[in-house]
C-alpha cells in the first residue's frame, strides 16, 4: 500500500510541477494527466488494500463491500481524462489559431 501511495505522491508531484512549470499548453495537459493518474493509482490501491468501508446494506439486506469501486472510479477518471484531453486539445488548437502560440502565459486575456 505504502509503495503505491509513494508512487502516487511522486506521480502527483511530478504532475503538479509539470503543470506549474511547463509553458507549453500541451505540456501542461501532460502534467494534468500525470496528476489524474496519481489519483487513479490511489483509487486502485485503496480498492485493493484499503480497509473495507463501513458495511452498507443493500435493499435486499446483503452487505455491500468496496469491491471494484476503486477500479471503476479509476476507469471513470481515465474516461473523463480522455474527454477532458480532447476538449483541452481543442481549446489549445483554437488558441493557437488565434495567437500563433501555445504558451499558457500568453493566455491572460481573462485576467481580472
Amino acid at each position, binding site marked *: 500500500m505504502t509503495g503505491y501511495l509513494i508512487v502516487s505522491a511522486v506521480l502527483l508531484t511530478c504532475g*503538479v510541477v509539470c*503543470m*506549474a*512549470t*511547463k*509553458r507549453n499548453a500541451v505540456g*501542461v495537459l501532460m*502534467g494534468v494527466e500525470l496528476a489524474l493518474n496519481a489519483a487513479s493509482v490511489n483509487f486502485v490501491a485503496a480498492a485493493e488494500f484499503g480497509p473495507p468501508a463501513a458495511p452498507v446494506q443493500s435493499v435486499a439486506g446483503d452487505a455491500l463491500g468496496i469491491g471494484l469501486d476503486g477500479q471503476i472510479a479509476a476507469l471513470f477518471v481515465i474516461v473523463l481524462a480522455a474527454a477532458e484531453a480532447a476538449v483541452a486539445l481543442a481549446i489549445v488548437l483554437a488558441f493557437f489559431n488565434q495567437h500563433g502560440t501555445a504558451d*499558457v*502565459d500568453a*493566455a*491572460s*486575456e*481573462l*485576467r*481580472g
Partner: protein
Amino acid sequence: MSVAQLLVAATFVPLIGAVAGLTARWWRPSRDDRAAGFVACASLFASVGLSVAAAALWDGPEPVEGTWYEILSLPGVTLELGHLIDSLTLTMFCIVSLVASCVCVFALGYLSDELTEEHRDYHLAHVLEQELVRPGRFHLFFGYLCLFVTAMLLLVIGGNLFHVFVGWELVGACSYLLIGFYYERPYASAAATKAFVVNRIGDAGFLIGLAALLAANGDVRFLSLFEAAGAGELSRTALLVGGFGVLAGCVGKSAQFPLQVWLPDAMAGPTPVSALVHSATMVAGGVYLVGRMTPALPPEVLLTVAYLGCVTLVVGAVPALFQTDIKGILAYSSISQLGYMMLALGVTGWGAGLFHLVTHAFFKSLMFLCAGSVIVACHHEQDVRKLGGLMRKMPVTAGAMLVGVIAISGLAIPGVSVFGEALSFSGFHSKDAILSHALAFTEANAGHAALFWVPLVTAGLTALYMVRLWGLTFAGAPGSATKGAHESPAVMLAPIVVLAGLAAFCAVGGDGGPLYGFLTRTAPEPGAFELFVSPSEAAVDEAHHHAEVMGLIAAGLGAAAGLALFGPWRRAPGQARAEGLKDAAVVRWLRRGWGFDAVYRALAVRPTLMLGEATALTDRAAIDGLVDGAAGLTGVVARIERAVDERVVDGLVRGVGRTARGFGRLFGAVQSGGLRQYVAALAACAVGLAVLAVVLLAG
C-alpha cells in the same frame, strides 16, 4: 322717441367724434386734414339737436328715472348706472352740448396751426427759448374734446351718485388730457397733473360721502336719497358725512376755496379747452352736483357751501384785478363766479345759483373764445400790458367781448326798456337773482350779513377787472404785440357771435323768464332748517328790488372806476399804470393768487417730498441693509453647507466608492490569467490544507 332715449343718445353721440378723432391717423393718414374736426363738430351738433329735442319733448315737473345696468345687487346694497332726467339735467345737457359745439367749431380755426407735419411750438420758443418742432395733433384734440363732452354728459345724466362718480372721474381724466395737450411745455404738463391731483383730493371726500350714503341708505339713487332724507330715515351722521364728502368733491371740481389752485393753471391747455373747462363742463360739475344733492344736504352743509362760496368769490376776484395774462384774468374770474353759484346754492337760492351757472357758461366761454381770437391775432401774446387798441382791428371780437364784459359785470341801463325789460344782458339777471336771495337770507338770519355784503362788493370788483381787461386789450393806444393783428376767420367768429347772442339774451325776463322758469320746474322746495331761517318767496321778491339797485350801483361804480383807470381815453398803452403797481410785493403776491401755491408747497408738497426722502433713506439704509444682510447670511450658510457637502458627504460617498474599487483591484490582481500561477496557488493551498489537517489531527 322718449325723453330718456333722446338724452341717452345725446350722451353717446359725441363718442363718434371721439373715436373719429382718436383713430383719424388710421383712416386719414395726412396731418393737414380737418376731417376729424368736422366729424367731431357734427357729432356735437347732433348732441345739441337731441338735447334740445328732449327738452322740448319733456312734459312736466315729474323727473324721469331709469336704470341702465345694475352693477352690484346684494341684500340692502344696490349700485347701478342709470339716469335721472329733470329740468336741471335737460338744461345742463343743452348748455354743455351748445357750448361744446361752439368751442369745437372755434377750435377748427384756432388749432389750424396743428395741421402740419412740422408744428413749431411758439410758446417753448418764446418763453423758454427752446426750439421744438413736432407733428401737429389736430385730430387728437378733437378726439379728447368729444371724449370730454361725453364724460360730462354722462356725469349730468347720472341718476345716482355712483353713476355721477363714474362721469366725474372720466371728466377728470379727460381734463388731464386736454389741459396737458401741449405736454412738451413743462408748465402745461405740470398744470394737467396739478388739476388731476387737486381734484383727487376732493374726490377722496366724494368717495367717503358716497360710501356713507350707500351704507346708510342701501342705494344712492338721488330720488331715494331725497325721499329718505325728507322722511328722516337717514341718520344725522350719515347725512353730514355724505353731505360734506360730496361737497369736498364739488369743492375740488368747481375750484372752490381751498382747492381753487388748479383752475388758474388749467389755462395752460389750448384756449378752446379753457373755454370749455372754465364754463360749461368740468367746473360746472361741482355746482351741478351741489344743486342736484341739495334736497339731501343738511343745513350745516348748506351753510358751509354758502360761506365757501363767499370766501371763494373774494379769493378769485382780487387776483383777477392784478393779472397780466388775458386768460389769467378770465381764470380767476371763473373762480369768483363759481363762488357766486355756490353762495346762491347755500343760501337756498337753488334756482339763482344754477341760473348763474347757465349764464356764466355762455358769457365765460364767449370771453375765452374772444381771448383766443385775440391771442391768435397777436401771435400768441397773452400779456394784456402788451396788447391794446385792438378795437378797430378786431371789431367783431371787441364787440363780442364787450357783450361778455357787460354780461358778467351785471350792468344794465335802468329806465331804458326793450320789450318791457331793463336793457341788460344775462349776467345781470342771474347775479341779481343771487343777490336778492342773499339779501333775503341775511335779512332772515341777522348773523350772516357777510353773505350779502361780500358778493355785493365783489360785483363791483368783477366790473372793475372786466372793464380793465377790455380796456387794456381793445382800447387805448396799440400795444407792442398788436402789430399786424387782424380779425379772425369766420370759422372762429361764427361761434363767438352765436355765444354773444346767447350770453346777451339767454336770460331774457330774468327770474320770470322762460329759461329760469324751465330750470326751476323741478326745483327742490327749501325745507325748514334749524340752523337758519329759509327766506320765503315773498321775502325774496321783496329783497329783489333793493338787491337790484345795490347790485347795479356796485357794478356801476366798479365799471366807472375801470373806465377811469383803463378807459378808451387813456393815452399811454396799458403798461404805465400797471407797471406802477408792478413792483409792490403785495401785488405780486395777489397776482399769484394769494400765495396759495407757496403755502401748499410748504404744507403739503414739501412735507410729502421730505417724507418720501425719509422713506427712501429708510429703505436704503434699514430695509436694504436687512435684505442685504439676509442675503449675505444666506451666502455664508450656503458656503458652509457647500463645504460640508463637498468634504464630508462627497468624501463619504467617494470613500465608499474608492474602497469598493480598491477591493476590486485587490481581487482583480489575483485574477492574473496566468495558468501556472493558478496551479502553483492551488498546489500551495493543497499543501497548506494538508499541513493544517495534519496539525489539527495530530493536535
